[in-house]
């Protein structure tokens, strides 16, 4: 029998819709594969099907996953689907098959002998770790109008996993988190629920930015965004605190970098030369 490749959009909806479509084919799962994004190396004797993200199908899949596999497995699948690795579609699909069709149920994520489950586990863990790192390391700057604004550049699409944390923590603040890599905004109006906006090409300062030669990403927010008068004061105070807190006799830059990789340091003002 020929292999079938379902090609889907790189999003949670895209992957879940593809899973729905794979089941809807009713041909078993052995010869069906899910591929995220465009195929760059077409195979001979394989059929390529294109799946469009569908709201209704996605919701049906979510409902089934939650009830059959439980919240924990569902969360792991969502995290894996937010990964930036391209094999996530196949990993998530095969894990769902292991959980629902092979019947591992709520224990699915324990079945690490299954290479696809192990891969999903790995991808989910990476996303969760990076989300935690962004929760640790992102820095808000206060704009002139009092809104808190942060820029991040995560490898995985972690926005949906970090917004609930900040929404709970800062309920009375207006804040905005900007994922530069995806041009995705997490928005939280004070006292209201948070939401996400995709702003591909929508932000003007980003376009203006391209003309400026930027040395580090940490310099960029000042380029088009006006920070409040107080902002500089507190940044300087914290940079001072950060510098003072180190014990000279224990200096260990390697350990520092191991705990706080450079790609996060780029976005943190206390690491940009003063």
């Amino acid at each position: 029998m020929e292999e079938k490749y379902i090609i889907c959009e790189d999003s949670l909806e895209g992957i879940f819709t593809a899973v729905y479509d794979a089941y809807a084919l009713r041909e078993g799962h052995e010869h069906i594969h899910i591929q995220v994004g465009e195929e760059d190396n077409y195979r001979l004797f394989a059929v390529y099907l294109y799946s469009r993200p569908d709201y209704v199908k996605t919701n049906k899949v979510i409902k089934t996953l939650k009830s059959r596999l439980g919240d924990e497995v569902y969360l792991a699948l969502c995290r894996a689907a937010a990964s930036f690795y391209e094999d996530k579609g196949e990993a998530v699909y095969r894990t769902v098959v292991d959980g629902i069709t092979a019947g591992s149920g709520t224990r699915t994520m324990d079945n690490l002998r299954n290479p696809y489950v192990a891969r999903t586990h790995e991808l989910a863990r990476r996303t969760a770790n990076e989300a935690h790192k962004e929760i640790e390391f992102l820095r808000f700057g206060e704009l002139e109008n009092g809104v808190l604004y942060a820029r991040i550049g995560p490898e995985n699409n972690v926005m949906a996993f970090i917004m609930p944390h900040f929404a709970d923590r800062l309920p009375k603040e207006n804040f905005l988190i900007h994922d530069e890599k995806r041009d995705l905004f997490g928005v939280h109006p004070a006292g209201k629920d948070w939401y996400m906006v995709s702003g591909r090409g929508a932000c003007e300062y980003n376009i203006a930015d391209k003309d400026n030669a930027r040395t580090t990403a940490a310099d960029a927010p000042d380029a088009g965004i006006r920070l409040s008068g107080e902002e500089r004061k507190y940044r300087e105070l914290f940079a001072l605190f950060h510098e003072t807190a180190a014990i000279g006799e224990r200096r260990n830059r390697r350990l520092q970098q191991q705990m706080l990789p450079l790609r996060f340091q780029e976005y943190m003002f206390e690491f940009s030369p003063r």
Partner: protein
Amino acid sequence: MEVRIAPQMPLADKLKILADAAKYDVSCSSSGSSRRNDGTGIGNTLAAGICHSFSEDGRCISLLKILFTNECIYDCRYCINRRSNDVPRAAFTPDEVCELTMEFYRRNYIEGLFLSSGILYSPDHTMELICETVYKLRTLHRFQGYVHVKAIPGADPALIQRVGFLADRMSVNLEMATADGLKAMAPNKHRNNILKPMRQIQNGIIQSKNELTVYKHAPRFCEAGQSTQMVIGALPESDYQIMSVAENLYNKFSLKRVYYSAFVNVNEDKDLPATVFGPPLLREHRLYQADWLLRFYNFKADELLNEKRPNFNLALDPKADWAVRHLEAFPVEINRADYHTLLRIPGVGVRSARRIVAARRFGSLTFEDLKKMGVVIKRALYFITCGGRMLYPAKLDEEYIVRNLTEQNKPGKDGKLSFMADGTVYRQMSLSDYGVQPG
């Protein structure tokens, strides 16, 4: 006493002096408390804790760690802020501490406040200032993030009680592992004055937990528990003494954490060990590893060390060191051994042990599977079998295993290999060991 604080000082100067004075306290964790925001203020806490930055020495910056004042009436020999030192002195006002905490917190620089202090006038006076600060932070500013406060030994129990209901964690520093050591190092401090508030906080926590089981909204007393710290390497106490004290603190005072602080001779005291070659960081590291073994791996202090072997092997981590001396317990069959036995295998941690136990319900595991679960195969391979087989034939022989394990311990950039404190030398194998006769 005369107070040597300059009356007017910019906030930045104060912060520099008082953060500098506080940095030798190692505790930084913001873990143990889990609290959602109630919608009226700012802040929440996460059980796992959050580090917000890392300083140049690789230690995490989680809390705004400052002293309220570095003015002090005591004269402890190891302390930079002792009375007889001529260092710049400063003191915050409660409002300044609140301002820094709130503004840093909402920008996601910090996870909360760690407030300690030198003794200004008297322990009671100092504790009152701390109490006022935290009270303002919690009520006026509705701050719901993490607060760690030092209980000042000798302060009125009523004050400590009040702070306990405002803070997530409290700590009293034991400073030295032995009472005699403390006497020698800190003439104004007494062991009993340290243990008394420690016991009071322990009782407060137990009482609050009991009340919470009956009344859901009973006030919480130090939800994240209490911790303490010991200075390592200032006096000639052995690792065994230190671990025994730590074990006692965990068992009898229900501490959440004991911190170990490698001694830095900040006062260049000629009677104390010089730390020109750096503080004893490797020893500190071994103590932390052993501390984890006590808390998460069900080890006892006297399993790891004893009177005859009072110090850790600096070349080998405490768990591997225990394992090579107990080869009768190995090899362990991964597919059959219970959780607690798995935990004792070098290269297997809490997470990988849990994953093994969960995954083998689906079928037997191979070395390949173990690798994916996070087991460090190169350390574990001497001690385990999968389906009755070792990864490759390895001798269950102490010297052989030690040599292989330490060979992975390549010398650092400075070319120095960690030496062994107790003089243990693992000798070089020669051909005659294999029965080859020279000549």
